[in-house]
Every structure is written in C-alpha cells, then in structure tokens.
C-alpha cells in the first residue's frame, strides 16, 4: 500500500531500568541507567521532593547508598559531601546514575519532605497551600 507518514526508525529513549528502593518507606521506583537517581525519584509523584540546583552544588538531595553501585555523573560540592561521607556511600542524588538495583536512605532536608516532615529551616507555608 502507499507510504504512511514517515516514522524514523530510531529509538526515542534507550536505557535499561533498575529498581531503586527507598529503605525508609519501602517504596520502589524504576530508574534508567541514563538518568540520575533524583530524576527517577521525581517520578514517584510525591509533592515537595526538593529538586534543588540539580548540579551538585546546593546539597538538598543528599542520600546514602546502602546496597548497589552508582556511577557519578558530575562533581558534588565538598561543602555538602565530605570525602569520609562519600566513602560511606553518601552521595547527592542529582549526581549519580544506577549501575544496577539500589537500596538507599534519604538524608537531611530531603528526608523531611519525602517522609512528610516539615523542613524547619525557612518559613514558606504549607507546601500545597494557596496564598492569595
């Protein structure tokens, strides 16, 4: 038959998916090997997960890897992750991509929003509140 609209035979996305488990809640999400743990975590759909600078400088997305391996996708500020911490598996979720299945714990400010506890640093009102 006649040719339909041209569809390029190139995959739109190509990456393997790994299971990432948040140990504190037991929740699991899938994360591709071409995306960072934070990009995958944002797809859980919880409100208030602080996606900060997404460039390793601000420190809000700190997690600790309890099992599994990750690869670094860029530099992490030493003001937020020291060498000792890094040796113990502390990383910024925006700067690592999974090499396989991962178990992790959320730390610091991020922990307070993922586990629905108010982050006490600055008064910004209710996360989903409407101020008129």
């Amino acid at each position, binding site marked *: 038959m006649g040719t339909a609209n041209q569809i390029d035979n190139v995959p739109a996305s190509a990456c393997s998916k790994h299971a990432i488990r948040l140990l504190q809640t037991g929740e699991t999400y899938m994360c591709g090997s071409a995306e960072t743990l934070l990009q995958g975590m944002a797809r859980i759909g919880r409100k*208030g997960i*602080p*996606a*900060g*600078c*997404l*460039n*390793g*400088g*601000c420190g*809000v997305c700190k997690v600790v890897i309890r099992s599994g391996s990750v690869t670094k996708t*860029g*530099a*992490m*500020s*030493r*003001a*937020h992750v020291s060498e000792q911490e890094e040796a113990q598996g502390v990383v910024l979720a925006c700067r690592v991509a999974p090499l396989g299945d991962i178990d992790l714990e959320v730390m610091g*400010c991020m922990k307070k929003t993922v586990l629905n506890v108010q*982050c006490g*640093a*600055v008064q*910004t*009102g209710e*996360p989903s509140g*409407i*101020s*008129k």
Partner: protein
Amino acid sequence: MGVMRIGHISIKVMDMAAAVKHYENVLGMKTTHKDAQGNVYLKCWDEWDKFSVILTPSDQAGLNHVAYKVEFDADLDALQKRVEDYGIETEMAPAETLPFVGRMLTFNLPSGHQMRLYAKKEYVGTDVGTMNPDPWPDDIRGAGAHWLDHCLLMCEMNPEQGINKVAENTQFMMEVLDFYLAEQVVVGPNQNIQAATWLFRSSTPHDIAFVAGPRMGLHHFAFFLDSWHDVLKAADIMAKNKVRIDVAPTRHGITRGETIYFFDPSGNRNETFAGLGYLAQPDRPVTTWGEEFLGRGIFYHTGELNAAFTEVYT
C-alpha cells in the same frame, strides 16, 4: 563619588570547562583572561571594563567575594575610614592583587560575606565601541546579557537567638556605603523585622539585596536583558543547553523585574532579568511587603512560593 555599581563577582565552580561553556554559550559572556592559577575572567558585551565574573576552580560551589566599583580612587580612603569607624576591620589589597584591578578595600559584611571596593579596572570598551555605535554587536551568543546587574546574598536570621544579619547588613550599607533602600519585606508579630531588603546606588531598583536564611550564602547573581522577548529567548537557549531552570519566565512583584532563574553547572544560581522596573532615586519612598504577600512579591503571577527558590542556594 562613592560606590557606582557592582563591579564583579568571584565564584567557585567544580567543573571549569562546563562553567566556561555555560557563561559563554548560555549567557553570552566572553573570556577575557585566564591566570596561572586556573581562574577564568569573563565580561558581557555591553560592559567596558575587563571582566565582571571570575570563575575559580574548587571542590565546592558558592561565593568567594563580590566587588563594587567606586568613582574616585580617593573614595577608597574615605570609605576605609568610615568602615573602620563602624567597627569593621579592613585591608587595602595592593594593585594587581587581582589582575587588571587597582587597589581594593577588602572587608567582611556583618553577615560574613566578603566585599571589595575598587576604583580602577582595565578599560577595554564595549563590543559596539564609543564612536557612532550600533545598538548591539553582530556576534551576540546565547542570551546576550548586557551586563552583570546585581547579586542577592543569603544572610543568617534567627529571631529567637536575636540574630538578623539582613538588618545588620542593611544598616551598614546605608550608613557607611551610602546605599539607599528601595524595597523591604517585613515579618514578625509587629511587622517590624526586616527579612529581606533591596538597596541601590545606581538608578535601578537594586544593586545588592539581602534575604534571610538559615546560613550565609549566595542566592544568585543577575544579568540584564532588554525586554520580555529577550527573556523568552533566553529560556529557549537554556532549554537547548539543558540548563536547570529554577523559575520559568515570570514577573517579580518586588522590583517589577521580568525574570528567569537557573543554575550553572556547579549549582550557583543565575538570573536573567529585563526591564528597568522603576527609577530608583535617593528620595524615592520605600516599598514594603508584608509577610503574607511574600509569594506575590517574588512570583507576581501565581503568588505562590516555590520551595526551591527560598531553600536552595550555594
């Protein structure tokens, strides 16, 4: 005489190649110098001095210092005396401490941020020159930022402990460096605690600003664009370059600026904003925002605060 405008900002970056690419391709700056320590100096097309941004290699992000230019060399001596009489220690760094810059009066603001004042920096000219100039040059790249416009510094505030570095910085800038107050945000049961201030020496709504936070840091530094159209185009350029945008194009209530906030590859926050806002003058009455209007002040259209905007900084 006295302080004229922001002269330059020196920041830490963790990946120098990525940082230079960002400031050149996204903002449109040009590298004008690299020194033996690996620091990179850049300027915008509409600036006439040698550089307005210094990138320094580091394992962290954040501010090194911010520098403001004064009109006359003698102003440095007069201001040194006023700063010291106020109780703040100063050091007069000799010429060429920074390449191409004369002597610099160096001290810390009450909040702890380092500020420098200088009178001389090497003149190189804008990209359109001074003789019968075009309004813009042919080789504009990226957003084509005109100039470095201002910075916003996060200052520690803790009312229970009686700490308010926003108020302390504001008082210092006004009493010692002759800055004027354009706008302020007031909080607290009596609406009398300054939680944020915008101050000027030029005729724009702010040359520096201070906002309360749990720790000192750099919230952002900003570059000037002409109009809303340029803001939209800048956002397109950021998307093309996979830049992390913090706040998509919108308007601030405070300063009336049309704005985008985004992060450089080390997580330092930048702003591109357009519009004069209003004519800032020494006799202009102060604009005040109450605590419950803070959302409207920062995000005029939605009136809602974005948590990352207030909590994330380097």
